[in-house]
């Protein structure tokens, strides 16, 4: 009985979502009196009985049921999404306020599968009356109605996170905000009323707590048990939720790392569930230039939107409307649009309805209109990208390329690419303790799967090699490894060279926010895979990412990033975007292949030297046997000479025997080369 009722319920609610459209009276199963009389053609429900159940659904209710749309499909992702939304908001707030961002992220385990997340910034703070709305109401925000480059777009994220926390733990969202050193701070505990999409303040009988500035405030903070890092102004949001913390790929650590790369002006403090703190200090003190807000470009406006704009506009004539609501529409362009639409320039906007709007829409598409101004998009910039990447990813060679702005569907955008080559990988850098913890936390069923899922760039082939080297079974469960086996595994991970068979580590960004899921569905991934990396000196099998010790960063900055879903995980593949991606990748690829060629030359030189050294021992021994000369002394002398000889030869000629100018190896400005043999990166496997 129970089983049969369940789908019926769902059907009913789905109907309701379609709102009034479904009154055809297909029966809900509630009235059915069991399977005993299945063939009777009794009406299961009437229009009246259905009408009793038809009512409005609030946004919050909808998202509470469809939380996967917002990125809360599983506990692990929920943790990350919550942190991500909070950090995004924090950074947006700071940048809008013109403040160099400093962000504290604190993840704390309160119970098994339950975590408390605190994220604090030093932003401008939030006014008392706005706090409940921002954190307790879905689709409430400042960013939706404007076209301006920012991380957040809809105003769903943080309140959805709060709602998820409430749903899974029953704990309210705690917010503390302060707008100035001498201003009162406010502390709220808020729960979202999912039925009404309305905040409900819990603490102090619905009033929240005001905290005075200065000494008294400190006492109050202590009294109420508020977590707070003392700053002059800023906001802290604390959410407790059911979650799962896991290291490795797609983890919180990964996300913060990637955020630090793309936002080198941010100082990140991070305390993980094991109470280890990690700092990502800022690399530059320069805030990115403030992005300008623009009006929509006519090409990017759809028919329905156009109708709404017409309805809402304050302008009276069509010309006024066109020039006033869109960018790049001058009176002359407006006139041409009107002519094409066969409408008078002085048509009243109020009278434009139905078929006329359609004509206007068509006319807009057919009229030539200039590209939107592109100064509203602020790329990270090549030097900053290099700094950011260098700070976080240890490698030998870095290159960055920023494309000039381009336009898709009337929205300006910029593609940036940065690439790091060489160096050791995550699998090689991990410590013995870290590995033990990761093994314990992993939900992979086999060790091979664990290696593949946890470490970037470790594919099936490399995983097999590591396991073979470690002499541990492939199908062993990661949690059941004995300490000695872990030792061997750790050693193997350090010693196995990952250069070959290692796939590229691709980090995608949209408006400086790392995209961590749905890599395969993303236009960025498509563009990278469709490029022929072999002509740039990398190996790549058909239709996949290139392999090699590579980290590739791709950033798309736009006033409106076309995501494929609300959880903002993949960029849609407009042809203009794919084209820009390709050009940017090629620019970086060219520099990379230059470097690889040079590196090959250096390696040849080493090879040459080794070849001499190999034979010198034999020569010395032979000579010693004939004339009784001191073998070791002779050997030393020969070695010294060989070194001198090879370096001489190599400085003057390349591998084809041509003379090379020292200038030829000049890479230009957007490149950074780190000597891998420098003591800082002593672990680099160069001198083999």
């Amino acid at each position, binding site marked *: 009985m129970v089983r049969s009722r369940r789908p019926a319920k769902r059907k009913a609610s789905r109907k309701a979502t379609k709102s009034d459209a479904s009154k055809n009276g297909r029966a809900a199963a509630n009235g059915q009196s069991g399977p005993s009389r299945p063939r009777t053609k009794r009406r299961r429900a009437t229009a009246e009985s259905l009408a009793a159940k038809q009512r409005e659904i609030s946004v919050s209710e909808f998202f509470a049921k469809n939380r996967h749309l917002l990125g809360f499909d599983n506990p692990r992702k929920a943790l990350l999404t919550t942190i991500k939304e909070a950090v995004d908001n924090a950074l947006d707030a700071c940048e809008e306020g013109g403040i160099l961002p400093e962000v504290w992220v604190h993840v704390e385990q309160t119970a098994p599968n339950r975590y408390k997340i605190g994220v604090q910034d030093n932003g401008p703070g939030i006014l008392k009356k706005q706090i409940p709305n921002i954190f307790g109401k879905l689709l409430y925000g400042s960013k939706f109605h404007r076209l301006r480059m920012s991380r957040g777009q809809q105003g769903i994220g943080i309140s959805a996170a709060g709602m998820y926390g409430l749903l899974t733990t029953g704990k309210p969202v705690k917010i503390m905000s302060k707008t100035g050193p001498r201003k009162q701070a406010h502390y709220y505990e808020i729960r979202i009323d999912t039925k009404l999409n309305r905040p409900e303040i819990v603490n102090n009988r619905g009033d929240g707590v005001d905290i005075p500035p200065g000494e008294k405030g400190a006492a109050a903070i202590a009294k109420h048990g508020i977590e707070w890092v003392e700053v002059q102004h800023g906001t802290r949001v604390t959410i407790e939720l059911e979650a799962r913390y896991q290291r490795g790929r797609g983890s919180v650590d990964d996300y913060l790392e990637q955020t630090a790369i793309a936002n080198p002006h941010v100082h990140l403090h991070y305390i993980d569930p094991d109470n280890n703190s990690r700092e990502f200090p800022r690399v530059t003190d320069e805030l990115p230039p403030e992005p300008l807000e623009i009006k929509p470009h006519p090409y990017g406006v759809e028919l329905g939107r156009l109708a709404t704009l017409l309805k809402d506009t304050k302008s009276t004539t069509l010309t006024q409307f066109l020039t006033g609501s869109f960018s790049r529409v001058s009176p002359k362009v407006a006139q041409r649009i009107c002519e094409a639409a066969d409408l008078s320039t002085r048509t009243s906007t109020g009278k434009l309805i139905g078929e006329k709007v359609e004509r206007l829409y068509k006319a807009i598409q057919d009229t030539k209109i200039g590209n939107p101004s592109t100064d509203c998009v602020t790329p990270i910039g090549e030097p900053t990208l290099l700094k950011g990447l260098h700070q976080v990813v240890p490698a030998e060679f870095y290159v960055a390329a920023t494309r000039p702005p381009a336009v898709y569907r009337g929205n300006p955008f910029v593609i940036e690419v940065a690439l790091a080559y060489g160096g050791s990988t995550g699998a090689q850098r991990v410590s013995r303790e870290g590995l033990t913890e990761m093994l314990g936390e992993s939900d992979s069923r086999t060790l091979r799967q664990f290696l593949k899922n946890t470490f970037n760039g470790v594919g099936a082939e490399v995983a097999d090699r590591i396991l073979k080297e470690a002499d541990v079974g492939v199908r062993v469960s990661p949690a059941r490894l004995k300490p000695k086996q872990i030792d061997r595994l750790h050693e193997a991970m350090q010693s196995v060279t990952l250069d070959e068979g290692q796939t590229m580590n691709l980090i995608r960004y949209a408006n400086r926010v790392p995209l961590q899921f749905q890599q395969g569905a993303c236009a960025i991934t498509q563009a990278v895979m469709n490029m022929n990396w072999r002509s740039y000196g990398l190996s790549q099998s058909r239709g996949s990412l290139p392999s090699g010790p590579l980290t590739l960063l791709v950033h798309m900055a736009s006033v409106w990033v076309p995501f494929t879903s609300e959880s903002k995980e993949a960029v849609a593949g407009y042809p203009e975007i794919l084209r820009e991606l390709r050009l940017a990748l090629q620019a970086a690829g060219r520099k990379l292949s230059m470097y690889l060629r040079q590196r090959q030359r250096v390696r040849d030189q080493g090879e*040459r030297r080794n*070849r*001499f050294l*190999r*034979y*010198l*021992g*034999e*020569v010395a*021994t*032979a*000579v010693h*046997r*004939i*004339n*009784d*000369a001191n073998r070791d002394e*002779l050997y030393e*002398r*020969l070695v*010294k*000479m*060989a070194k001198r*000889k*090879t370096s001489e030869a190599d400085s003057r000629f390349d591998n084809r025997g041509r003379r090379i100018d020292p200038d030829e190896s000049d890479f230009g400005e957007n490149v950074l080369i780190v000597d891998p043999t420098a003591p800082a990166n002593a672990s680099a496997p160069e001198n083999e």
Partner: protein
Amino acid sequence: MAKRARRSPARTKTTNKGRRSLAPVDKRTLSQLVGLADTVSTAATRRRAPHVDVPTRSLSNVRYNKSKRFLEMGKATNRRELFNLNQAKSYMQTMLVASGCKQLIDESKTTSIRGLFYLLKHTIEGTQEETFDTQNECDPVIEDLEVTLNALREELHLYAQTKGAMVGQIVIVDRGDEIDCSRMGSGGYAIPSIVEKDVIQFKKHSAKFVLHVEKDTVWQRFNEDKFWRTHNCILTHGGGQPPRGVRRLLHRLHTELKLPVYCLLDNDPWGYYIYSVIKQGSINLAYESRRMAIPEARFLGLRSLDFGRCELTPSVTINLSDQDRKRAKQIADYPWFKHKKPWQKEIARMLDNGFKLEVESLVSKDISYVTEEYVPERLRQRDWLD
């Protein structure tokens, strides 16, 4: 077991030094070897790149001495440098061979060139590379060392594989054993690789000339028919291209006993070349021509006109390959053939025939045609090419 016993003293060889007094020849060779090693030590001390100048062993560095009528080596040398990527390995190998020879002299032993190859072959420390991959890599290095040190192979205590045999009216002493070459049965006296005076002395002879045939099978025919007894001569073969032992012996018979040398070879470019090597010396061993070339050697046959003259059937001919034609033209161009009309005619006729003839083809006439008619007839008519 034996191998190990031979190798182990190698490791401690210097301690043996001076234990045994060396023959004067060995003393000279040894001092040359030490001189070679010293160039490396001195170069290293003076911080110069060590090198060896190896006389070039190729056609370009070979000169036909018209008055002496044999090939001489020119003065061109190839510099082999240790610090040259392409030469480093062969330099190392040269030194290795030198040290191996030094060891042989120290222990007064001789070994085959294959033995030396095994003596020196080992994995280079710290690599997976072998000092020599094949013997083909080792042999040229040995020849290089011979030329460089101006020492003969036997002086380096090396010998090549024995090839070639001798019977005839001569008595020799080989390492003290008296050998009567007229009583050698069907096998003959195997000519050793080293036939210098200190090994082989000629005791007495009654032979009037030497007949050298190309290969073993023909030689058997002549031996079985006791040609050497009926014609009072010495009969040798070199198993194709004669090794230097055979050539040196022919040279000694010719110069010391004043015996003329006649060659009976196949009528093909290869046969011409064998004759050329016996007469003028080889390009590869031009530095030994002085001791090996027999400018007076004569080419008895087979001649390209023998097909008609001996009334052979077309079924015993072998068609010339493109390679043969090419080789024939090269040989016709050699300076020592170029100005000899009979030779030009001979080669032209062969090319014209379009086939080659082996000595064995004469068997088609009669089994002993070659010994009973062909060779005696040529000798009687003094019909040969020079």
